[in-house]
């Protein structure tokens, strides 16, 4: 019995159980299609952020271009299903394999860079992807975007907000479970060693490049899969999905919620998706308040919301 109690206190089991319960109970509170829609959008971002947090929070490698991978996934699904009549699942898989390959090829030269140079390179990569998508309008519909059909899984169509809610909820639980397992594995320890001191990790015999490449590819593939999911769910994709601001949004979710805190990232996604919805009535003031909140939270809680709050609850200095 005490063994189980102990397990429930670990993020791997207790936290996961709490997340499953929240996902199961939330539909009871959601009253209309709009609220389901917001929940789904939070979920889609949260899954991307769980992957990105492995890269930024645990490994300490910044990426300002992950929306590029999200966009590539979204447009792979859109183009392959609409223009070439592939099945949705095949398009999703092809997109994620393609993104995985691109990430793998670029990972070594990019991850050799450090600090601001790494920020510059990933930012450039994301911007190039979004410019290509916006320019090749014969294939992508250009800046106006393109429509995407529903997600047909064999003969079953994922239709309506409720069905999509369960799909995204399942993906979220799956991604958190995967991330927690990676963090608790030898791979996770190696990643944290890289964050602490890359040179020390190398001295200890860790092939740091190998692990950095691994987590870069993993986070890129997750972004691509969620891009595909987003494309079918929303039924429409535009180049902004791949753009600089979406990349910034994703990084902000990671940092706002708490770097190296898997659940913090989900909280970050929740806040950053909800905030514009809450501020949208304020029209002209929206940008000012959004910018202020971003600055103030980062100034007063540089470690992010969740680690700061749990730190205070435990009575320690966060």
């Amino acid at each position, binding site marked *: 019995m005490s063994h189980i109690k102990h397990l429930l206190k670990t993020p791997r089991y207790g936290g996961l159980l709490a997340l499953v319960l929240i996902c199961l109970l939330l539909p009871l509170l959601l009253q209309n299609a709009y609220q389901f829609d917001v929940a789904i959008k939070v979920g889609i971002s949260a899954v991307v952020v769980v992957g990105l947090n492995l890269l930024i929070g645990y490994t300490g490698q910044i990426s300002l271009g992950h929306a590029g991978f999200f966009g590539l996934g979204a447009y792979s699904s859109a183009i392959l299903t609409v223009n070439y009549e592939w099945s949705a699942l095949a398009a999703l898989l092809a997109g994620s394999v393609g993104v995985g390959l691109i990430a793998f090829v670029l990972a070594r030269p990019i991850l050799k860079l450090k600090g601001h140079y790494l920020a510059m390179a990933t930012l*450039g990569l994301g911007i190039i992807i979004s410019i290509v998508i916006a320019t090749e309008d014969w294939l992508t519909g250009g800046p106006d975007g393109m429509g995407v059909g529903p997600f047909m899984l064999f003969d079953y169509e994922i239709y309506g907000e409720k069905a999509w809610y369960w799909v995204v909820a399942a993906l979220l639980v799956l991604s958190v479970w995967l991330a927690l397992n990676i963090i608790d594995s030898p791979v996770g320890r190696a990643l944290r060693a890289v964050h602490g001191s890359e040179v020390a990790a190398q001295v200890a015999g860790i092939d740091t490049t190998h692990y950095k490449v691994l987590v870069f590819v993993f986070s890129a593939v997750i972004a691509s899969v969620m891009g595909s999911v987003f494309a079918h769910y929303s039924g429409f994709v535009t180049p902004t999905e791949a753009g600089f601001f979406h990349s910034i949004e994703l990084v902000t979710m990671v940092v706002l919620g708490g770097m190296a805190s898997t659940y913090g990232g989900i909280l970050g996604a929740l806040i950053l998706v909800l905030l514009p919805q809450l501020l949208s009535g304020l029209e002209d003031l929206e940008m000012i308040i959004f910018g202020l909140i971003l600055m103030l939270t980062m100034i007063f809680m540089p470690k992010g919301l969740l680690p700061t709050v749990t730190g205070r609850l435990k009575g320690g200095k966060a």
Partner: protein
Amino acid sequence: MSAEFLQYLFTGITIGAIYALVGLGFSIIYNASHVINFAQGEFLMIGGMCTVALVGTGLPMPVAILAAVAVTAVAGLALQKFAVAPARNAEVVTIIIITIGASIFLRGLVQLVWGKEFHALPAFSGDEPITIGGATILPQSLWVLGITLVIVVALSWFFNKTLLGKAILATSHNPDAAKLMGINTGFILLISFGLSAMLGAIAGILVAPITLTSYDVGIMLGLKGFVAAVLGGLGSGAGAIAGGLILGIAEAMAAGYISSDYKDAVPFVIILAILFFMPSGLFGLRGTERV
């Protein structure tokens, strides 16, 4: 040299000089504080928009320009004092997000005051193009080049000959040692943000008659200035100037000879290619890292 080539060269050098000024702004702040200020582009925007607004109230252009530069400098000082200084010990990515938050805030503020429309600033001395070797150049381009040259000379005098300039350099080399020598490093950080904001404002005012100005004009200009600074090697003033000119010329040539669709992608393709082979930029020190 064909007239066509000369034409692209003029266009490239003009916009390259602007990128160089923005890149210098990045470098000054980076040197003093190791912060990449993602709100740098907003300094250009505030400079340009403020000048347009003040000229609109009937002020003579030179007075409007001076006032706009002063307003932007105050914005730079405020950014350092209230947003960057309190987060001194935070991680790189946290400070990046603070400056991005600041840039969204500043854009929101300007949009609230002056709206979302594009605004035109009249050229400083007419729009009559000058013909050189079959190519034409606008008088405004000469203003851009001339003032950039004056600023570069003034900056190198400032950093090499004045006590304050030397204090900034000392702080960037070793803040602790500088502090022991009696330099007020907190004040130096403040000054570097103010100086960088002034540079940004001047670049924004110079370019406004060529490209028009609006509340979101700073985003792309800021990012390309960041590329210029990284291309030349972060923290190197001469590097930022060379980086800016290379980007501007490459962009104009690519737009002229290949396709204007990918004009905005050119700086980013160049920086990726350079960083893959030279991870510290063209002129960056191949510094060894202390462990």
